[in-house]
Structure formats: C-alpha cells, structure tokens
C-alpha cells in the first residue's frame, strides 16, 4: 500500500508540475501573441494533467474533494467566467474613462458623480420605482384573480390556463412590436371615436407609461398566476369543506382561509414581480424606446420620458457611446437589485421558519 501510495504520489506530482508547466507555456505564448498552433493543445493537456495530478493524489480525503470539485467545476467555471469576472471588471471600468476600446486613465468617482447630476438618470430611477410599485400591486392582483378563476369549477380550465400563460412565452421585443401596432392603430381608433384624440397612447409620456404597464401585466400575470394556482391547490380540502359546513361565504373563505394560507406564495410572487419589474428592458425598448418628453424636471426638458433604468444604462453605453458611465449606472443597478434580493431571501426564510 505504501509503495502504491508513493508511486501514486510521484505520478500525481509529475502530472501537477507538468500540467502547470504546459499551461504557463501556453499562456506565455498567448501573451506574446504567438501564432504557434500547439498553444491550445498545451493549455488543454496542461489542464487535464493538473486534474489527473489531483486525482492521483494519494489520500482518500483529497480524492473525495477532487471528485466534488470536478463535478462542480463546469458550473463554477461558467459562473466565474460569465458572472464574477464581468462583475469585477465592470466595477473596475466604472472608475475609468473606458470607451469600449481604450482605457486611458482612472477617474475615481467622477462617473458616479456625473450620473447623479443627470436629471434624465434621476428620472429613469424614479420612473422605474414607480413602475415597480404599480406592477407589484397590479400584476399580483390580476394574477391572483386569474388563479382564482382557474381553480374554480368552470369548464375549459386547461384552455384558460394555457391562454393566460401564453403571453409569457412570447419574447418581450416581439410583444412590444405587437402592442405598438395595437396602441398605434386599434386603440387610437377607439380614442379618436370616444375622446376625439387622434394621437396614440405612445405619443405622450404619461399614457405611454400606462401602456408599458398594461403590456407588462399582460406578459407577466400568466406566469405569476401559475404560482398562485399551485399555492391555492395546497390549501387542504378538508379545511375548505369544514368552512363550507360552518356556513362560511365564498368571500369569507377567500379572505379568512385561502389568502392567509397562501401567504408564503404571495411573498414569493411579490418579490418575483419586484425584481422582474426592476429589470424591465425589452418591452420598454420595443414599445417606446424610452421616448417621451417631460417639459420640466429639475429645471430641464427631458427627452426620455418613458426610459427605465435598464434601458437608460443600455442607451448610455451603446447608443451614446459612453461605456464607463454606463458601467457606473450598472453598478448602482446591481446594488439596488442585490439589496432587493437579499431582503427577499431574508423575508422568505423567516416565513418558512414561521410555518
């Protein structure tokens, strides 16, 4: 066993050092912009050798740890490459004058100062908060009513469930263009006939904001409805039956039994709506592209009357070609979403303990 262990140790160390050497060579060649065709092969073989070295390392504890790491590695690697590294780089770029091509100097908190001095950005934050507040209430209300309908004894419930959920399967951009046509044509014909207003809802900031809310509810209520249906189905039948025998009216059953019993579902749905509404981008882009005028906000005429936070960040970076400022705004956006998510997790955990 000892001989076996020592030979394994030798193989392990050989693989580890060989692997590290190959990877270092490959990375040096890459840094030198070498065209050597074996760079990739060196890198991959080096990685495999390191993994083999760890695998052969002769203790049970290491062996088990290695197996866990190997199974976690693909996910961890993807997570680091797609989330952690861009996050760290993004935070770093927000302190520079990076334009997507070059980085010439560090500017400290200048981008942060600049973004808070922009009335258009402050407007986007306020508009997003307002949008979130409206949607948290309206989406949940509509979804809950639809869930009640879909858990009743109506005929064709399967059809209704599918029909209400269907808009959620359509991409936001497509949805935005479909509704743009509806608002610019169908709704305008109605408003022209009823109120003699020949311009579409989308041509005014206030009504365009309402239009975005309507589309968002149409898109998202079906998804939230499914969660409420699951919640309502967990209410025990015998409790409902007992309430019925005791003479409880349908309204009493709803408010005294069903809603209290699905409180955790309501919490989950509320936070889902909250985080999702904060990140609103695609419908906003396709429906109004953030346009709309505000005649006076903090002493300025604004041209981004319906531009929410995510779209403002995109426009700052990509359209206005100001990547570092866009990064600074994105960092703030991240902080807001992180705080909301942490609060969500804390409250959800607390509810679970209470239950």
């Amino acid at each position, binding site marked *: 066993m000892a001989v076996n262990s020592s030979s394994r140790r030798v193989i392990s160390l050989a693989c580890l050092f060989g692997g590290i050497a190959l990877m270092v060579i490959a990375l040096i060649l890459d840094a030198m912009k070498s065209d050597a065709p074996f760079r990739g092969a060196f890198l991959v073989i080096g990685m495999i050798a390191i993994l083999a070295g760890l695998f052969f390392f002769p203790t049970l504890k290491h062996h088990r740890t290695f197996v866990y790491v190997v199974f976690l590695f693909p996910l961890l690697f993807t997570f680091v490459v797609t989330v952690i590294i861009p996050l760290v780089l993004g935070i770093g770029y927000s302190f520079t004058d990076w334009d997507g091509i070059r980085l010439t100097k560090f500017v400290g908190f200048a981008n942060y100062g600049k973004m808070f001095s922009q009335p258009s950005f402050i407007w986007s934050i306020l508009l997003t908060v307002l949008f979130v507040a409206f949607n948290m209430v309206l989406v949940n209300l509509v979804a809950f009513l639809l869930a009640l309908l879909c858990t009743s004894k109506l005929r064709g419930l399967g059809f209704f469930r599918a029909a209400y959920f269907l808009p959620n399967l359509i991409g936001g951009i497509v949805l935005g263009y479909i509704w743009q046509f509806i608002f610019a044509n169908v709704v305008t014909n109605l408003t022209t006939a009823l109120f003699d207003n020949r311009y579409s809802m989308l041509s005014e900031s206030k009504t365009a904001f309402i239009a975005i809310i309507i589309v968002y509810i149409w898109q998202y209520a079906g998804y939230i409805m499914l969660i409420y249906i699951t919640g309502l189905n967990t209410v025990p039948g015998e409790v409902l039956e007992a309430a019925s025998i005791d003479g409880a009216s349908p309204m009493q059953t709803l408010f005294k039994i069903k809603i209290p019993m699905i409180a955790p579902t309501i919490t989950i749905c509320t936070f889902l709506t909250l985080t999702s509404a904060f990140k609103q981008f695609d419908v906003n882009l396709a429906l109004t592209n953030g*346009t709309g005028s505000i005649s006076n906000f903090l002493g300025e005429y604004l041209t981004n009357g319906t531009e929410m936070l995510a779209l403002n960040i995109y426009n700052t970076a990509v359209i206005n*070609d100001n990547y570092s400022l866009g990064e600074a705004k994105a960092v703030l956006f991240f902080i807001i979403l992180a705080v909301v998510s942490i609060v969500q997790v804390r409250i959800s955990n607390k509810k679970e303990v209470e239950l």
Partner: protein
Amino acid sequence: MKKKALALLMTGIMAAGMAACGSNGGAASSNAGTDAAASGDAQAAADAGTTSAPSGKGVRLLNGKPEIDAQLQDLAKKYNEETGNTLLVETIGGDTSASDELKKMYQADNMPDIFVIEANQADTWDGMLVDMAGEAWTDKTGFELTNANMGTIGFPYTVEATALAYNGDLLAKAGVDPASLTSPEAWLEACATIDAQKDALGITSVFGWCAEPANLGWSSGTHVFGQYLDSGLKPDDTTYIDLLNDGGQIDEARMKAFAEFIGMMNEYSDPDLLVDGTYDDQVKGFTDQKYVFITQGNWCVTEDTGFECGFAPYAFEDGFNTIIAGPPSYWVAYKDGDVEGAKAFFNWCAGDSAQNILVNDAGLVSPFDDCKYEAVNPFYKSMKSYIDAGNYSGWHTMLKKAGLENKTCQVFADYAQGKLDADGFVSTIASVIKSYYAE
C-alpha cells in the same frame, strides 16, 4: 451499458459544444469567394495597381448594410474569380449596432481587416486605421473620408442623398416647378397651391413627414436635423457642425428659419402619419402617390416607381438650392489586419467589375468619377444633377455627438404635436443640445 452509452453521448455533445464555442466564428453571414488561389495574388495586385501582394489568407470585411449582403457575397466571388484573392463578407444585420459589435470584436481580438464606420466614429479608432493616401482609388473620387490625425482613412462605397423627395408627376399636374423651390416663400406658395388641389390630385397631404421618435428618430434627429447644419452650404463648409461640436451651440437665427420651415411641413402633413406613423407607412404613401413630398433619401425607393422622382432643397432661407449628398458611412482598413489585402481590395473595388455589381445589382450610387454605370435608383438623375452642378452639401450631421439624434427627435415630435411653437422649438432644441453636450 445504456448508461455508459448515454454518458459517452453527453460527453461527446459537451466536447463538441466547447469546441464550437472556441472556434473563430463571428460571421453572421460570411462567404469566401470559394478557394483562394494564392498564385493569383501577384497578378491581382498588379491588376489592382498596387506593388505589394496581400497575405493570401483572405480579407474579412464587416458590412453594416444587411440589405446588400447577397450582392456583397457576389462581389466576393467576382473578386476571387478575377484576382484569386479571398474576400470574406460578414454582415451585421437588423438593428444591431455595427459600432457596438466592432467593440466586442476588438475586445475578443477578432477584428476584421475592413469594417464600416460613420464619420463621427473615426476618433473612436484613433491610431488604428490605415492611411490610404496615394492609393489609386483616391484619384477617382472626392468622397473619401479624411481625418486630421490618421489621413485618408475611409473608402466611400456609396453616395446617398437626402432632401425633400418629390413626385414630379404630381408637381407637374399641380403646376409647381420643383426648380423654383429655393425660398421659404416659394415653398409656402407651392404648399398652398398643392393643398388646394388635394382632391383633384388624389393625394392625402402635401408632405409625408413623420416625426415619430421611437422608430423614426434617426430620420428626424439625424437627417432632417442635418438640414439645419448643412442646407445651402458647400460640401466642405463646416460652420454649423463646428458651432454644434463646440459645446452644443446653435445659430438661433438659422434655427428659427429652419423651425418655421418645419412648422410649414407640420401644417401640410398627413396628421395620421406625422405623430404615430412608421417608415413603411411613409414610403408606401409616397409610392402610392398619396404624398407629393416625403422626408427621406434615395434609399427609400430603389425600383421604378412609375413616376418621376427628384429632390427639392430644404430652402428655409432664400437661395438655398442644395441637397445633402455624400457617403453616409465608409469602409476603413484596420492597421493590425491584412493591410495590403485591404488596399488591394479597395483598388479593385473602385474598378469596373466591382462597380457593376455595386451599382447595377446592389442599387448603390457610385462615388467614383469614372464609373460608367448609371444607378437604377429613381432619384439618381436628380442626385446627379445636383452633384454635377456642385449644388450639394455634406453629411456633417454624421459628425455630431453620438446619440444626439435621440434627444433632438423628441423636440421634433413635440413640435409636430403642437406642444411647441417655432420659438419654443428653437429654445427647447437649444437647451436639449446644450445639456447633452455638457454631459
């Protein structure tokens, strides 16, 4: 056994997926002009008028006009047939910003050898573009893009024009001579004349002007606003773009005259199109002969309309007789790419067989003086008459600060809705521009 087979299959799929991720794709649509014969390179270079041969690996061109992708693929085939060199055309489609995509390519170390830029994007690539001064093609055009730091950097592959596009047949029926439309008074009189004959002419309105900002902001914010910057000026006159780029200043008197002209367009436009219309509605209204004028350029119709098409100037001051004409974007060569290959392609592209494809198949208007092909575009004759007479202004609107059009287009929309009068338009657009430049 089944489990092992499944595991093997999944491993295979994962490996294939990772290999695919690692491959140097990038091309949304690309085509090599079949297999390149390196032996033909020297001959190609000789034909193209250059002394040095390209690398032979193939030149990658990033095209920003998806509508001419097929024609550019034909161009690549022709280039390969005639020179043995390979051209790989990659096209960025739809609403994707070529500028943004190029930045991603740069960060991924996957830059094409030739790519498309608009004039105001040159500074973004400062020090990275090839100075092509002295190349054979530069002697055949006056439309190349020059930059103070980098020299002659932009190859003009097309010329586009924008002004007030008109239906000549309807104007003739209404008794209006388009050549007379060189002053605000003449325009007002023409509008009143045409408007009075709407039923007889079978039109909806005099203008098909659309100030909708969400989808047509590029039209009002860039092209129509560009008339304020350039109308009536010589192509090299940069008075108002210089003023604009100097902290966002405007000439209030000129802007007031421009605002009054736009006010006239608002008054005589189709109200259904003016605020909520789309590009398709606008162009269809013109081709259906429902509008006499539309605020687009020669790109809006590329085939025969069945009526005479032409351009009239935005004459918001007396004597304005120019249209905006020139390349809206350019092909540039990347300094760290295949420079000789790019130069060889540009020289070949300015020649007869390439121009044949670009003009006759792609419907572009050639920027080269010796091109013998007349564009099929119905506006070509009118464009040519302005260019030949020297009555054209530059596309200096492309030199304004990036993203400004998304701000100014909203002011046009508010003016169209009647929220602002001419004075309100001037003061609002001045404050919007000033604050955007201050950001």
